[in-house]
């Protein structure tokens, strides 16, 4: 009796275990030739003109090819579908396409594919978050008025000439405009997008080296090599599986366990061990990202004449070398201008442009702040969002450095804001009373992109509301300049105004960091710190 019941108990326990283990499986879809990589859930549906963050952007880079593409090594804008983009006056452009390009559903890529996509992106009622990228095209104010409903459905500055040609009229001179066309917002769209939008969102169709195999929103996007890809940079692997991770620590653990091939975001806590863990399979290379500390210029205490001394003084109170070494394990480089090394000297990067204001000098810092009237209210608060990116660590280090330089324990404190959403709210509502963190990841590798959106009067990312007439004038001049060299030099002249006014303290240039398994090779990051997925080889 006793024994029998025992056996029954045992049997049921085994049964539970069997059910628990037996029901599994199903994840073993053919992985041969396919690279699995970590991913973050994109914030918006995957539409070119609606994707304004890195996670969605990296998918569009795999699914689409536009008129131009930024060279994954040098960052230079090179023609892909564009055969040539010609202009005589830097304002009227004629775009001629190459032959032989199609979307993966067989549709031809024509001038209409571009014009329709751009019109869709610019039209207010489509609520595309990248709509402002079309603002330089003539007629933007009609399709995207600041208030009220659109007065036109299409941009008057765009005209299809024939299948292979279209013309663009800008509303101002903008000589480097063709170089912006590698950005995701300018990708062409097939007619299928307009015919059945929901179906397209569920399974996007593009003209890039990969096609979407399946997309489970929020968990995994499986892309496979498109065998008939007409471009000269076909995928060198069978496909990419992008898996959504909420925690980059888990992604890193998965990489260590051989469950994942590629992470493009090594968690800060692992930076100390990463070389020991991965050896040569750790990548740490410069990216087009700069971290700054911006001032609320709309606040009288920070924006008044004379306060530039305080702002410059604060900049000099920061020991960038030490922080990048101790906190970031050299995955950041102390900044000495407002651009990024990935631009190269030709593209406008000029180390040392900031001058002594970006050098650490405690005594001078103290003196400058004193001359400028001291810190408003005797102290400074640094605002940041505490939910992502381990910002707390470096903000605390920054304050520590400032306190030490000024010889006051309470001169600087961090002011965490709960979520990024709330942080953005406070910024757009102009409710900052002290400096705040302001990272900038470039949209395209042009010096213009590091200056105009951030410091031009009322520009889209000018959160500190810096406004300076001579800065604006120089930017306008640089944009109108047809000679690339002169344009860059004029932009740098504008940058020199930033050095004297210091509306934002350049802190450091950020590197992209990643790691990969021994299953794959030929892994590199592009200047946007996104892995060059199509180049990855599976061993």
């Amino acid at each position: 009796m006793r024994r029998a019941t025992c056996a029954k108990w045992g049997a049921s326990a085994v049964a539970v275990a069997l059910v628990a283990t037996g029901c599994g499986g199903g994840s073993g879809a053919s992985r041969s030739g396919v690279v699995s990589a970590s991913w973050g859930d994109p914030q918006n549906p995957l539409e070119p003109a609606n994707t304004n963050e890195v996670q969605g952007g990296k998918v569009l880079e795999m699914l689409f090819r536009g008129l131009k593409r930024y060279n994954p090594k040098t960052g230079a804008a090179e023609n892909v579908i564009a055969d040539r983009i010609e202009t005589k006056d830097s304002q009227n452009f004629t775009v001629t396409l190459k032959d032989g390009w199609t979307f993966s559903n067989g549709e031809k890529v024509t001038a209409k594919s571009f014009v329709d996509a751009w019109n869709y992106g610019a039209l207010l009622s489509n609520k595309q978050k990248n709509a402002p990228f079309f603002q330089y095209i003539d007629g933007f104010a009609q399709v995207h008025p600041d208030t009220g409903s659109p007065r036109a459905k299409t941009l008057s500055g765009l005209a299809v000439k024939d299948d292979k040609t279209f013309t663009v009229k800008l509303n101002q001179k903008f000589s480097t405009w063709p170089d912006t066309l590698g950005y995701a917002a300018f990708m062409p769209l097939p007619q299928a997008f307009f015919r059945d939008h929901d179906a397209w969102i569920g399974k996007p169709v593009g003209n890039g080296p990969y096609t979407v195999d399946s997309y489970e929103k929020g968990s995994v996007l499986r892309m496979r090599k498109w065998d008939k890809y007409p471009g000269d940079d076909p995928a060198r692997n069978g496909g990419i599986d992008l898996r959504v991770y909420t925690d980059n620590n888990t992604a890193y653990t998965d990489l260590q366990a051989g469950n994942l091939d590629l992470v493009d975001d090594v968690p800060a806590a692992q930076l100390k061990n990463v070389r020991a863990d991965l050896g040569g399979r750790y990548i740490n290379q410069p990216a087009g990202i700069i971290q700054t500390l911006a001032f609320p210029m709309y606040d009288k205490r920070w924006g008044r004449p004379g306060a530039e001394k305080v702002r410059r003084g604060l900049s000099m109170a920061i020991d960038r070398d030490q922080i990048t070494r101790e906190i970031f394990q050299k995955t950041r480089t102390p900044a000495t201008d407002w651009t990024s090394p990935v631009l190269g000297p030709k593209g406008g990067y000029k180390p040392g442009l900031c001058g002594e204001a970006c050098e650490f000098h405690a005594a001078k810092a103290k003196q400058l702040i004193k001359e400028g009237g001291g810190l408003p209210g005797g102290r400074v608060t640094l605002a940041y969002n505490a939910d992502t990116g381990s910002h707390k660590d470096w903000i605390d280090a920054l304050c520590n450095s400032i306190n030490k330089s000024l010889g006051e324990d309470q001169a600087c404190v961090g002011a965490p804001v709960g979520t990024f959403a709330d942080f953005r709210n406070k910024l757009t509502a102009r409710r900052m009373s002290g400096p705040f963190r302001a990272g900038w990841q470039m949209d395209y590798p042009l010096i213009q992109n590091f200056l105009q959106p951030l410091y031009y009067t009322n520009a889209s990312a000018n959160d500190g509301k810096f406004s300076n007439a001579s800065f604006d004038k120089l930017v306008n001049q640089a944009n109108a300049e047809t000679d690339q060299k002169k344009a860059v030099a004029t932009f740098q002249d504008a940058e020199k105004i930033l050095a004297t006014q210091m509306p934002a303290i350049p802190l450091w240039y950020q590197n992209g960091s990643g790691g990969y398994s021994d299953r794959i090779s030929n892994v590199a990051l592009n200047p946007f710190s996104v892995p060059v997925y199509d180049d990855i080889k599976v061993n």
Partner: protein
Amino acid sequence: MGRYVIRRLLQMIPVFIGSTFLIFFMVYALGDPVAAMFGDRAPDPATAAQIRRELYLDAPLWKQYLHYMGQIFQGNFGTAFNGQPVTELMASAFPVTLRLALVAVVIEMLVGIVLGVFSGLRRGRDIDTTVLVLTLVVVSIPTFVSGYLLQFLFGVQWAWAAPSVAPEAPLNELLLPGLVLALVSLAYVTRLTRTSIAENARADYVRTALAKGLPRHRVITRHLLRNSLIPVVTFIGTDIGALMGGAIVTERIFNIHGVGYQLYQGILRQNSPTVVGFVTILVLVFLLANLLVDLLYAVLDPRIRYA
């Protein structure tokens, strides 16, 4: 009994309305989510206004709430910002978390009750002391510590299990996260069972049963255990609700795309339809689990009856 069930079900209505309103209000108090959708750029005012109108964010709070409730009764929980209906998110998230919670409950029941019975019957002896010390240790370790530790040991060091769970969340991959999730409750179940068993072991009916000459094993399972399980069942019942809501940490560590993940994303992005919808369902789960526990009492102990 029937009237009791109906009364309990009716009581759910005010709880449902109250909790949704509170959550709605709290998410709303976090502020406007539209600004964050534009990343590091100031939202273009015209587009932002369009989005606000579409998401019904331009109306006053009470209107938003009524609108939301009106939609809910039509089975529409609104749309998340990535364009997916919240019901779709629920359909993908709840089964996963339910499975995880069930794995946890099975583990905590099997292990917890067995350990509890053993130590309860041998009160004061070595095995009892060991179990008490062990449960104390388990209770005092936070989930994120045990989670990362077990993940590292089992997943990386010994390679016995995958450190993260595939999107389909098959049961065998949920064993490890289920164990992590179960650990703290498991310790409570053990201790509850132990105390209860130790108390009842000296009860008259146990002595009677033994005196009748029933085998010890039958006395323990049929007489002792049945009476001792009442507090344990209460705990496990309410724990199911807690496990489903409390899985946020475990799900994050093991990259499980369940309720915890969706709630976390919803809170980060201030996506009120997601947060309110999920929490509402969780409240319902909690209420139903409690009802089930009360009904189970009557099964375990026929003396407990309700009017």
